[in-house]
């Protein structure tokens, strides 16, 4: 019910919104919770397990009950706290965990079965049979119990991630935070002030006190204006700091688009990483409930929340309100209600010596021991030594005292201190390096103390970063003692709720202790207390106090459970913002990419690169047709392929040759200038890492080629050698992969094609096989290498990348004119398999040079990386799996990569495994499938027949073992 008063709502701006299909009106400045209460809506949710009717409990982000779903489809957000959701025109919120409706929820039958559904119920009940858990029990439980759900549709909202840096981060903008930010800002520090709420002020916005002779909220507003005007202060409202991490880094979630209709391009949330030299934690405190029988009815609220609704939002949460507490702040609630003209039917204080001057029915030394009503509170029971009273009330404001919001301070595994005088945990200094706690989160509960601690913390932070500042004059404010007498649970029968969100009662915690789950961490997991979206903000301390009592220990000995990030829920979409679709990983495109796409070539990924599979021609319906045709270009005329993705590393220096001698198993210092050599590189453990060619362009200048996939790894490997193993060497190297566009020109007509382009033609004498050197095309300087990955007379021509597209187009046209054309990765693969050339399908990390038949390349004349390890016993044995070729001989003429090999007649089981196929292709040149693979003792078994079994695809055939080079074993075609 809306009441008169000067709250922080804009009565000139009505806002209409929907809840469960009904349209309501609120005002600008309302949260969903305040607007619903203003409309008299008390039942807003069903509880997690028992489907109990629930109402709004708090007025902040700790809300355990009033969770709603907002939005639809790809923009649907479950478990939105009605207490933090600002209303806007058109907001559509729905209640959760109920069917068919909030008022008539079928699963409320669970509540009647409550005696059987206590702590550990699932563990004890749904044990057998084992298979039933996944198929039957879990789906049923998931359906019956739970919170909101996502829509299952792809997300349509935009999220973002961002970084921020500052000298002083201030978390929270209550009196401590405002004073800290002001002090640090005025000293010239770069300040970031974060506040969960849409407005700065924290509790000041909801209390009736005075600061500096003006209403506290006016002081907060004036201070906010001052801070906003400072260029060195960045105010981040609607931003929750969710985690403290190493090196002064904090995670923070900014709710950018939750308070308005989503507009184009606006992110819904931004996940910030804030790096601060010093942090002032001024996160305030959270009021804790008292456990008594049926303390969860709609209408039973935190006393501080009642004050917030009355003072800030001008909402009376009831017509007849009772107030129950164990500390002085409860009395403020009664006073504020009276001042607002709301009837207070009882003020109950558990402290026997409490007094009041308020004109209300006052019960000192009394406790509320029960409540009545179903969908809303109707009456409470008050117990005191003299007897039991029943009082009609439709709202109860309760206060069990305050828990400092110390979560962030505990995020790096520090454990807080117990302070007996305030019956609460407080942070210890230094729990998070660079973080200073101030104000209520540090156990200072008066406004004056908060202002003082805020300024003091700022001064400490400023001093630490070398800025000078004087203690500012603190504004005059309330400085009252916080007088509390602990009250965790009111004795009595029946269920008394500790954790509203997970339906955990005092009885459950006691039962856990009885069943020997005495550690607080065990109790938590056994009862589920402190789990789910509120992470036990309202219940942790009370639960462990009850556990302490049940186990006969003190609270400090019992200790707290572990506080972990995030402080409030963070959408995965926010943490992963930008990484969807094209943002997942960079795409690397070759210079021929646009023409490749235009030609309709399907692309395959090679690392981050995109390469053409094949170039289909009109009328071709199967990739094999295109592939076979492209192989034919190379074998019979000339083919052109973009090979720019191969790693290219430029190596210079007096010791460049010696450096290469150490990197490669074979010798490079003997390589002549103007020549290229194939080389093999081992890892430190003696297994093959990569292979490729290296060209010597000058005495002290080489260009190395690596495979596409291993380019980065080879570069790292070279850094390891130059920085760690051969530090004295005078050698420098850098990647030039991106600088050069490089194309293979392969086939009998390769030289003819090139000579039509080169500014100075070449011949067999000037450019024999494995020659290299400078060339120019159209006046553009480039390089030419006569190397071959197809076995044909072939070259690789390289020009600066800016000319890549133009060169590709020219080469393609020339090749087509000569009866050839461009070819893709499929044809490239067929060509190299026909020649028995290896790729990372063969050198997959577990093979040695010996295994691939290159033991002869391991020089005996020099040391090289991996030499010692490669000669270990077992790595040079004849029965190792060795590289061989395969041809199908059975009825099935197909070979499949990944298939395993067995001796003819042997059962195809693991124990009989003889090896496996790594690469297969249909060779149009030879008219048969060809395979490369590893076979136990294979080099001595050429000519044998073995059985190939592909257990995955269900293919079986026999094949002949042969030499891995199927075509032109003497290499004459490349040398012609």
């Amino acid at each position, binding site marked *: 019910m809306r009441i008169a008063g000067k709250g922080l709502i804009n009565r000139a701006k009505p806002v209409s919104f929907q809840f469960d299909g009904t349209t309501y009106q609120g005002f600008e400045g309302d949260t969903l919770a305040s607007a619903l209460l203003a409309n008299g809506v008390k039942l807003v949710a069903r509880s997690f397990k028992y489907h109990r009717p629930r109402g709004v409990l708090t007025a902040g982000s700790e809300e355990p009950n009033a969770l709603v779903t907002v939005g639809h489809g790809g923009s649907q957000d479950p478990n939105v706290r009605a207490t933090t959701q600002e209303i806007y025109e058109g907001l559509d919120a729905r209640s959760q965990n109920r069917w068919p409706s909030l008022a008539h929820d079928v699963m409320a039958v669970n509540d009647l079965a409550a005696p059987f559904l206590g702590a550990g119920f699932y563990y004890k009940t749904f044990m057998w049979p084992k298979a039933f858990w996944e198929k039957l029990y879990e789906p049923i439980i998931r359906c019956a119990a739970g919170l909101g759900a996502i829509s299952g549709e792809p997300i349509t909202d*935009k999220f973002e991630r*961002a970084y921020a840096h500052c000298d002083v981060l201030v978390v929270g903008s209550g009196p401590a935070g405002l004073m800290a930010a002001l002090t640090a800002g005025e000293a010239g520090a770069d300040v970031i002030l974060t506040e969960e709420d849409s407005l700065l002020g924290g509790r000041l916005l909801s209390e009736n006190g005075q600061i500096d002779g003006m209403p506290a909220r006016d002081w907060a507003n004036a201070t906010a204006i001052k801070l906003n005007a400072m260029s060195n202060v960045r105010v981040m409202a609607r931003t929750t700091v969710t985690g403290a991490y190493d090196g002064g880094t904090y995670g923070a979630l900014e709710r*950018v688009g939750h308070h308005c209709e989503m507009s184009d*391009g606006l992110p819904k949330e931004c996940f910030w990483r804030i790096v601060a030299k010093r942090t002032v934690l001024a996160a305030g405190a959270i009021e804790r409930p008292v456990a008594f029988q049926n303390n969860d009815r709609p209408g039973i609220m935190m006393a501080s929340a009642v004050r917030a609704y009355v003072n800030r939002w001008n909402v009376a949460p009831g017509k007849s309100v009772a107030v129950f507490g164990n500390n002085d702040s409860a009395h403020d609630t009664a006073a504020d209600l009276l001042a607002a003209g709301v009837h207070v039917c009882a003020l109950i204080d558990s402290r026997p010596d409490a007094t009041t001057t308020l004109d209300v029915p006052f019960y000192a030394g009394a406790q509320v021991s029960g409540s009545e009503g179903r969908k809303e509170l109707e009456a409470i029971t008050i117990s005191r030594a003299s007897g039991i009273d029943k009082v009609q009330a439709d709202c109860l404001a309760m206060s069990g005292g305050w828990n400092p919001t110390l979560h962030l301070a505990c995020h790096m595994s520090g454990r807080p201190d117990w302070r007996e005088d305030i019956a609460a945990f407080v942070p210890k200094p230094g729990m998070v390096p660079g973080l200073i706690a101030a104000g209520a989160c540090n156990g200072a509960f008066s406004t004056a103390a908060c202002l003082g601690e805020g300024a003091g913390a700022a001064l400490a932070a400023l001093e630490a970063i070398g800025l000078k500042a004087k203690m500012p004059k603190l504004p005059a404010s309330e400085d009252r003692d916080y007088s509390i007498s602990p009250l965790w649970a009111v004795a009595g029968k029946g269920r008394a709720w500790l954790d509203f969100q997970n339906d955990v009662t005092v009885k459950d915690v006691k039962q856990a202790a009885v069943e020997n789950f005495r550690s607080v961490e065990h109790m938590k997991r056994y009862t589920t207390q402190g789990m789910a979206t509120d992470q036990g903000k309202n219940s942790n301390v009370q639960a462990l106090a009850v556990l302490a009592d049940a186990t006969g220990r003190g609270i400090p000995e019992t200790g707290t459970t572990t506080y972990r990030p995030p402080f409030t829920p963070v959408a995965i979409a926010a943490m992963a913002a930008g990484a969807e679709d094209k943002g997942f990983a960079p795409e690397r495109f070759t210079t021929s990419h646009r023409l490749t796409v235009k030609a309709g070539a399907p692309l395959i990924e090679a690392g981050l690169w995109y390469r053409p599979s094949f170039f289909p021609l009109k009328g071709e319906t199967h990739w094999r047709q295109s592939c076979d045709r492209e192989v034919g270009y190379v074998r019979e005329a000339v083919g052109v392929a973009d090979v720019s993705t191969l790693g290219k590393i430029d190596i210079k220096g007096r010791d460049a040759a010696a450096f290469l001698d150490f990197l490669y198993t074979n010798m490079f210092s003997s390589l002549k200038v103007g020549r290229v050599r194939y080389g093999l590189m081992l890892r430190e453990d003696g297994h093959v890492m990569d292979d490729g060619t290296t060209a010597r362009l000058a005495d002290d200048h080489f260009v190395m080629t690596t495979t596409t996939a291993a380019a980065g790894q080879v570069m790292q490997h070279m850094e390891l050698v130059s920085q760690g193993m051969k530090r004295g060497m005078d050698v420098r190297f*850098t990647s030039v992969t*991106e600088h050069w566009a490089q194309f293979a020109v392969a086939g009998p007509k390769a030289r003819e094609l090139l000579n039509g382009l080169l500014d100075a033609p070449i011949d067999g004498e000037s450019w024999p096989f494995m020659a290299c050197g400078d060339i120019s095309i159209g006046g553009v300087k480039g390089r030419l290498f006569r190397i071959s990955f197809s076995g044909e007379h072939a070259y690789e021509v390289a020009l600066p*990348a800016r000319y*890549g597209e133009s060169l590709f187009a*020219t080469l393609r046209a020339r090749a087509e004119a000569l009866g050839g054309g461009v070819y893709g990765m499929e044809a490239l693969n067929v060509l190299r398999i026909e020649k028995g050339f290896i790729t990372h399908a063969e050198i997959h990390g577990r093979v040695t040079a010996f295994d691939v038949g290159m033991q002869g390349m391991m020089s005996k004349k020099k040391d090289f990386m991996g030499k010692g390890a490669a000669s270990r016993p077992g790595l040079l044995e004849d029965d190792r799996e060795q590289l061989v070729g395969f041809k199908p001989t059975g009825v099935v003429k197909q070979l499949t990569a990944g298939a395993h090999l067995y001796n003819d007649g042997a059962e195809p089981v693991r124990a009989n495994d003889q090896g496996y196929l790594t690469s297969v292709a249909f060779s149009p040149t030879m008219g048969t499938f060809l395979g490369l693979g590893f076979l136990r003792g294979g080099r001595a078994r050429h000519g044998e027949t073995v059985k190939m079994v592909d257990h995955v695809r269900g293919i079986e055939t026999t094949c002949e073992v042969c030499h891995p080079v199927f075509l032109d074993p003497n290499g004459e075609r490349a040398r012609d």
Partner: protein
Amino acid sequence: MIDLVAISPCEGLLPLTVGAVTLSEPEMAPLALVAPMKGKEASLAKAMQAAHGLEWPAAGETSKADGAELIWFGRAQALFVGAEPSAKLAAHAAVTDQSDAWTRVLLEGAGARDVLARLCPLDMRDTAFPVGATARSEVFHMQASITRLGDDSWHIMGFRSMAATLVHDLKRAMESVAARTQG
């Protein structure tokens, strides 16, 4: 003779303006990586000064003379930008042509720093990253070189092959920043 056409890395992708921020590609310029050979740091610095009037940049710094610039580019290396490096440098350093290896873009306008804050973890405040400062860092998922040219002006370099992604990621961040300022 064949007439080959030169294409810049961002052809067809830029320029682009979103809100107050513009992303554009400067004219392609000669780029060369200069890395002093063993023990030649001092003599290279001298030769660089003599040939081009350029100071060898300390880590995170740049130096400028007419027509050419040196951008610190990692441990014991700098990128020589804007002119052909003197052949005399080769006696002291490995000089490697990288003119076509990098995509260069300019991010300019009010809010350019906010755009970078969505992609790069570095502290870009005036105190930490003044005009003339440079860093090897990252732009979202890719490694990059970032140099501050002016109050609201930044020079960003990424691999040539990743030009499309560089523009994609920057554009997305530009849209986010623009959407907030409109809102």
